[in-house]
């Protein structure tokens, strides 16, 4: 398939409590094989999905947060975190996993995947997309 579209996955929900976050990540990982222009946005409670040091022992649910670190290997390099959502929850970028990707054209130099954006900037990014998956 030669068409390249801009696909954005909008993650709006906490990682546990509902299955949306996990099943969204499953779509992203499968979708990576289609070599599209993919980005992820984390907004509202969705920002909790990237919080470091998650421990789910108490709720008996699998902690799937380590899988986010593999996104770079799947060529998912654009991860947008909405600043207002972090602020409202008393979080900062330091509370989140640091996701990177390796640039094979520059001797596998590690590059930044995480981008802090304002609500307004995210609205512009959404406007640019061909397809928006909202989970």
């Amino acid at each position, binding site marked *: 398939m030669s068409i390249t*579209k801009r696909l954005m996955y909008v993650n709006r929900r906490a990682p546990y409590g509902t299955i949306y976050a996990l*099943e969204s990540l499953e779509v992203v990982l499968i979708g990576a094989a*289609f070599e599209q222009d993919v980005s992820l946005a984390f907004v509202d409670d969705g920002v909790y999905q990237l919080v470091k040091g998650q421990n789910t022992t108490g709720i008996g649910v699998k902690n799937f947060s380590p899988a986010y670190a593999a996104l770079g290997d799947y060529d998912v390099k654009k991860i947008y975190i909405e600043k207002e959502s972090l602020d409202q929850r008393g979080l900062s970028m330091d509370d989140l996993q640091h996701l990177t990707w390796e640039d094979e054209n520059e001797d596998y130099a590690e590059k930044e995947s995480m981008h802090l954006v304002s609500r307004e900037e995210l609205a512009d990014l959404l406007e640019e997309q061909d397809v928006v998956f909202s989970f």
Partner: protein
Amino acid sequence: MKFGILVNEGPYTHEASDSALQFTRAALAKGHEVTRVFFYHDGVNNGTRLGVPPQDDRNITREWSSLAKEHELDLVVCIAAAQRRGLLDADEAKRHGKDADNIAEGFRISGLGQLIEVAIQADRLMVFGD
């Protein structure tokens, strides 16, 4: 226009499935193409033929099945989401050693690639959910 439809919620609890059904029907009536309807999350539960809603209520699964028959719609249930929730066709039931299957007429089970494919091919992907 070519539409792809994504249904993320199960029937009856949530109106998303009704809305998706009505949208699909209206789009077809206007002469648009619905390339595929993909059922994900609890949306896979729209595909069970074992639901028995009260007779004075709508039967959402049956409505999807008959719409599919009438318009040769491609109704695809996500395999991973379906396995978690116990929605099986005959092949899946056999593969997992289960004593029954429950998929409704006109639905088929396939992978998430089918969702990405329709998202790329269609002019618009409509997401119905919470």
